[in-house]
């Protein structure tokens, strides 16, 4: 097992290298040079010395592989992702600032999705073709079909109209720039349910269907009958055998959860005015804020790779049938 993990981590290095090249190419793809757009946008405030300094710093006159080397060595050696032109601040500051809240929302949403959909999926499979199963199925399909931003608008209206809650953002106005206190944390929690439900609905609906299908496959297998014939009670039987096997595919789904932590749900976050990385990526792409966009693309790619690794390791640990060769 340890060798398997070590080997997989070793494979990460060339993969990350290739990913960083692609991410850098994506930065360079839009036509025009970022200094040109910087100067055209803010002519008066930037003098020639500053332009020359920037040109020097990023080595813009040099060939593309030299530029790449400067960018990647800055990231690897100093954690320097370059500066955002639009914000006029280091990219790393911008990302770190928002990453915390993004993680909180995403992880709570993930927990919400799993906690809600797994029991419902199990119920739906065990009671297949009953009224309860049909009701759950209909609700699931509605949840899958309604676009997130629409749900966001409706729930925001309901929260504002009937619960008098300040909607949009994750904090009440008085807490937005306040330091972390118990009050601020509680304020966050009282605002968190709205984005969590909105962001989690589609995932919950999808996962209910996946769980139901996985479990239906397992329930009819002979090892379930064999365990029943041993005298196991129905509930223990259900959780010890078929549910245990049916959960394995969900673990592999973790791979795409990680990148979604950073890039996912941009539109919903914009509608809800959430201070997460989704809207940041969206805006940076619109504004051709290339180092910010490029760094976010790189981050998303790295998280995809790491997510795949984590889910592979978890699966290898959970499912003995996976050969570690």
């Amino acid at each position, binding site marked *: 097992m340890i060798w398997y993990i070590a080997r997989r981590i070793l494979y990460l290095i060339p993969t990350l290298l290739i990913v960083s090249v692609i991410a850098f190419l994506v930065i360079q793809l839009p036509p025009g040079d970022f200094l040109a757009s910087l100067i055209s946008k803010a002519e008066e405030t930037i003098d020639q010395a500053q332009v020359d300094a920037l040109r020097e710093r990023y080595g813009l006159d040099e060939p593309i592989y030299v530029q790449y080397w400067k960018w990647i060595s800055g990231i690897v050696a100093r954690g320097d992702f370059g500066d955002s032109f639009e914000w006029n601040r280091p990219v790393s500051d911008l990302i770190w600032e928002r990453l915390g809240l993004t993680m909180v929302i995403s992880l709570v949403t993930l927990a919400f999705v799993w906690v809600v959909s797994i029991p419902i999926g199990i119920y739906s499979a065990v009671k297949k073709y009953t009224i309860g199963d049909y009701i759950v199925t209909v609700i699931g399909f509605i949840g899958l079909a309604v676009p997130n931003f629409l749900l966001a608008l409706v729930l925001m209206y309901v929260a504002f109209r009937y619960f008098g809650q300040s909607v949009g953002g994750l904090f009440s106005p008085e807490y937005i720039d306040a330091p972390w206190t118990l009050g601020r944390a509680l304020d966050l929690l009282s605002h968190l349910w709205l984005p969590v439900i909105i962001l989690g609905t589609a995932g919950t609906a999808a996962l209910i269907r996946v769980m139901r299908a996985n479990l239906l496959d397992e329930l009819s*297998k*002979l090892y379930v009958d*064999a365990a029943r*014939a041993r*005298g*196991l*009670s129905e509930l223990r039987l259900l959780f*010890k055998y078929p549910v245990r096997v049916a959960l394995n595919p969900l673990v592999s789904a973790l791979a795409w959860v990680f990148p979604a932590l950073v890039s996912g749900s941009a539109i919903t976050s914009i509608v809800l005015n959430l201070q997460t990385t989704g809207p940041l990526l969206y805006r940076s792409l619109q504004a051709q804020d290339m180092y910010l966009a490029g760094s976010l693309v790189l981050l998303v790619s790295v998280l995809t790779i790491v997510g795949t690794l984590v889910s592979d390791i978890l699966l290898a640990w959970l499912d*003995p*049938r996976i050969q570690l060769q």
Partner: protein
Amino acid sequence: MAPNVEETLLEVKDVKTHFFTDEGVVKAVDGVNLSLRRGQTLCVVGESGCGKSVMARSILRIVPAPGRIVSGEISFRQRNGETIDLAQMNPRGRDIRSIRGREISMIFQEPMSSLSPVHTIGSQIMEAILLHLPVSRSEARKRAVSLLDLVGIPRASEQLDAYSFELSGGMRQRAMIAIALACEPQLLIADEPTTALDVTTQANILDLISDLQADSGMAVLFITHDLGVVAEIADEVVVMYLGRDVESGDVDAIFHEPKHPYTRALLQSIPRYDSRDRERLYSLKGSVPHPFNRPGGCPFHPRCDEFIADQCNTIDPGRYTVGGDHSVRCLLYEPSAAAQNVGASEPPAPAQNVGATR
């Protein structure tokens, strides 16, 4: 130890297990009778789809939905001497669970899929032990090792931590047998346990089951479509057709004096090494009817060579005793009909159809 050998352990009386589907009712088991004494082996034979497996599952009450027992009685004599009716029990209740694995165990057709893919062999044996016997985990583990040893799995203490996919088909079936024997049941139901195995392994497993049976004195209800297996291990035989017991009796009576046309046809369809060259093997005409299209009267009449017009297709034959505990469901043997029908008074010899070309 030896309890009364003649004592009846299991008695199934006119059990009907039907499946209530949207398309209609499938009468998978439609009136089966059998009885099994302690330490004996009863073989249930019949073509695929004749309800053998559903009958076996009905005894343990593990018939899958939408099937359920609609009538009949399954009397089982427990260790404590009490006789209970399994057909009356709640299939999800505590009572039937204390029977499963403890008094009656079952092994299945495919050892590949009847073991959990993500649990070790040992954990599944220990589960069976810990469910029914008041022992500690370490004792259960010791017992599991000796069980694996008993069923002939080499290096038992290592194989305890093996997963099912790490074993061959034969070893998996041995592991299943070890689980089934974990609590020394009085009855082992074996649902075609050798069908998915190659011939050499089949013979080994059959030998293993008979050896274990000889040592423990348990009874075996063996479901198979292989008449060769029946001849080898059976004391008693029940022949099933479309959910019915069409003929039952001791193994000699069934093989040497088969009465029902279906039994005779089955026996004639066995290839024989001493048959003449280029002789065509007898084959039963037609195939098992679709469950929704069950023939009226005797269900076998459309395929029967002895079909009596206006009788077999209208009269549902009862069980007629033809000597000892040999009984048959066929109008040819109905006491009053025998007097009326000249052709049926002298049942045709079994060899009549040998070599017949269809």
